[in-house]
């Protein structure tokens, strides 16, 4: 699915250069769930943006099914995001003036499908996240957990190959966090999508197939949960949703 080779992202601020990501080599398989951990400001979100084509690396290549995202012109990159990549953000990022259904439908606009098709797919996506009865509510009328469910539905409605989630539970309480993660896990299992989830929460990271850690822009792959290195602990028993 993804092959990152020597990916570096530098931010220039005045005369100084700040490395956000340094010489990143990473392979993510189809249908894999990869969690990326790390402290704030160490490059987790930058990696996600690079994987989603929201940003371009300063050096290196990011291949998605053989296509180098870094070399694509902006229009093709935009089209790729429209068709194959779904995003879930920490702050939900819903359009405040559109209802839940319209927010989900917004993800289908670039695909130029018919209004009938869009509405059918929107209804199915909201049903998948259990929000059919909230379809006509504005984001301000929804709880945090409900807003994040709408965001998940918006990411899934286009049936993407990849879902990129950036701290999806960062603004939620503990119970809601567990519900959202369980939902993401369920959808991952049911649909076989490739899920890359950024989190600083070890409890959530432990549920993934693989865990990577970003430290000062450098990524270190932890082995599978079953082969955790010394010093790497997952709190409590491993929970997997079936």
């Amino acid at each position, binding site marked *: 699915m993804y092959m990152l080779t020597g990916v570096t992202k530098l931010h220039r601020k005045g005369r100084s250069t700040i490395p956000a990501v340094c010489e990143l080599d990473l392979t993510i398989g189809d249908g894999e769930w990869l969690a990326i951990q790390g402290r704030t400001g160490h490059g987790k979100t930058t990696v996600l943006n690079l994987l989603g084509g929201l940003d371009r690396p300063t050096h290196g290549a990011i291949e998605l099914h053989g296509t180098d995202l870094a070399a694509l012109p902006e*229009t093709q990159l935009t089209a790729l*995001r*429209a068709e194959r990549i779904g995003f879930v*953000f920490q702050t939900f*990022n819903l359009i405040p003036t559109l209802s839940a259904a319209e927010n989900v439908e*917004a993800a289908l*606009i670039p695909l130029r499908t018919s209004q009938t098709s869009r509405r059918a797919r929107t209804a199915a996506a909201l049903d998948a996240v259990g929000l059919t009865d909230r379809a006509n509510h504005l984001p301000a009328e929804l709880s945090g957990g409900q807003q994040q469910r709408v965001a998940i539905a918006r990411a899934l409605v286009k049936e993407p190959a990849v879902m990129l989630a950036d701290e999806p539970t960062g603004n939620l309480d503990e119970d809601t966090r567990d519900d959202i993660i369980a939902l993401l896990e369920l959808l991952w299992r049911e649909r076989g999508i490739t899920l890359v989830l950024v989190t600083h929460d070890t409890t959530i990271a432990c549920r993934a197939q693989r865990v990577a850690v970003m430290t000062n822009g450098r990524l270190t792959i932890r082995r599978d949960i079953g082969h955790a290195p010394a010093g790497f602990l997952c709190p409590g028993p491993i929970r997997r949703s079936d």
Partner: protein
Amino acid sequence: MFFVTYLRREMRRRMRQAVLVALGLALGIGLVVTISAASAGVKKAQSDVLSGLYGVGTDVAVTGPAQAPPAPGTQRQIGQNLELGPGGTQICTDGRRCVNAAGHTYNALYAAPLLRPFRTSSVASVARLHDVAAAAGVLTLAGQSITFPAGFGRPGGSPPELTSFTVDGVETGHTPVGPLTAATVSSGHLFTAVDAYANVALVDSDYAAGAGLRVGSAITIRQVRFTVIAIVSQPQGSNPPDVYIPLARAEALGTAFKDGGSLSHDVSLIYVVAASAADVPVVQHEISRLLPGSTVTAAASLASQVTGSLASAARLANDLGRWLAIVVLIAAFAVACLLTMGAVARRSAEFGILKALGWRTRRIVAQVLGESLATGIAGAGAGIGLGFAGAAIIAAVAPKLSTTAPSSAIGSLQQRPAARGSIHPFASHAVSVPLSPSVTIGVIVLAVILALAGGLLAGTFGSWRIARLRPASALAQVA
């Protein structure tokens, strides 16, 4: 439709800003509409004044060269004349037979004293010129009737009764040029060719109202009875004659002021229509060569001689008004652009989300342009309404515009008695015309175009910002 839904919701969310931008555009457009309406009203007032002077469609007017007034005692005594005799005021006929004025009526009908008339053959010569479409001659006369009571001149006697009126002798066939082209017939009918030698008259509506005349009434001009066949009205400010009679009858009854001589085959003014507007200068030149010494005046040049508050209003509308409207429009456009750019900046995160969802830049730009155009259309509607209101206010409160007829030869010929009863027939006159602003379809279309242009300009400035937006940077603003 998603586009309309999103647009509508966004407009509602930013209602205050949208209203502000729309009001700004409305103010500029309303000013443009009001000033255009006022300018149209001033032009119409000018046109009414000029068409009244010249008649509709006249391009050039020709008057004869100036002539010196007669020296006292040198006039030939033809027709009736008032003289002071040993017994008092006398009415003398042909300079010989004189009677005491008491108990008698003095009648006179004479042409302009200061301008030499043309022969009617000159009219035909002018009409035959290459670039002339039509020409017609008019004989302008002033009439007086003084009735002396029986006891006039004796102690306790009554004063004489004076009646003055003006007469135009006009061609009776159908002519596309002349003083009657702008006239409206209230009742009756205009002259026809068969009336060329008939004692029939057209009477101005104001004069008819004052004298109690209607179609079928009789009026006496120099002791000849004429039958009124029509009541006519001329445009506001045109100062028309009281009576129109056939040219041949005017020539027969009128006398030259200088020597009392005959006016047979004479006209005092020639109206000319050029083949096209571009031919007017050529026509002027050709007539000047054909009739040396004559005064050839174009209608366009006469417009520049119109003085008074009408001229001031025209300058105000054209100069100050136009520039004021332009400045306000530019300010409105600038405000719209700035506010739209600010709104786009505040929505950077939202546009970053849309880009993350795969929306192309032009799709987002179309959304922003749609919102700007919607605001522009609202501004157009409000602006047109403001313009109509402004025009209505001007019509309600603006004083009548005054103008003084030009002092050129044509003006002096067209000068009518300042008041009926005056013994000086060619006093100058001032005219008052109402200012009637009018909003035309063209101005409304212009207003809509301006509003859409303002909306597009504002949207374009905002769109430039969207095009440069990087999704990662925009989303970072939310995190």
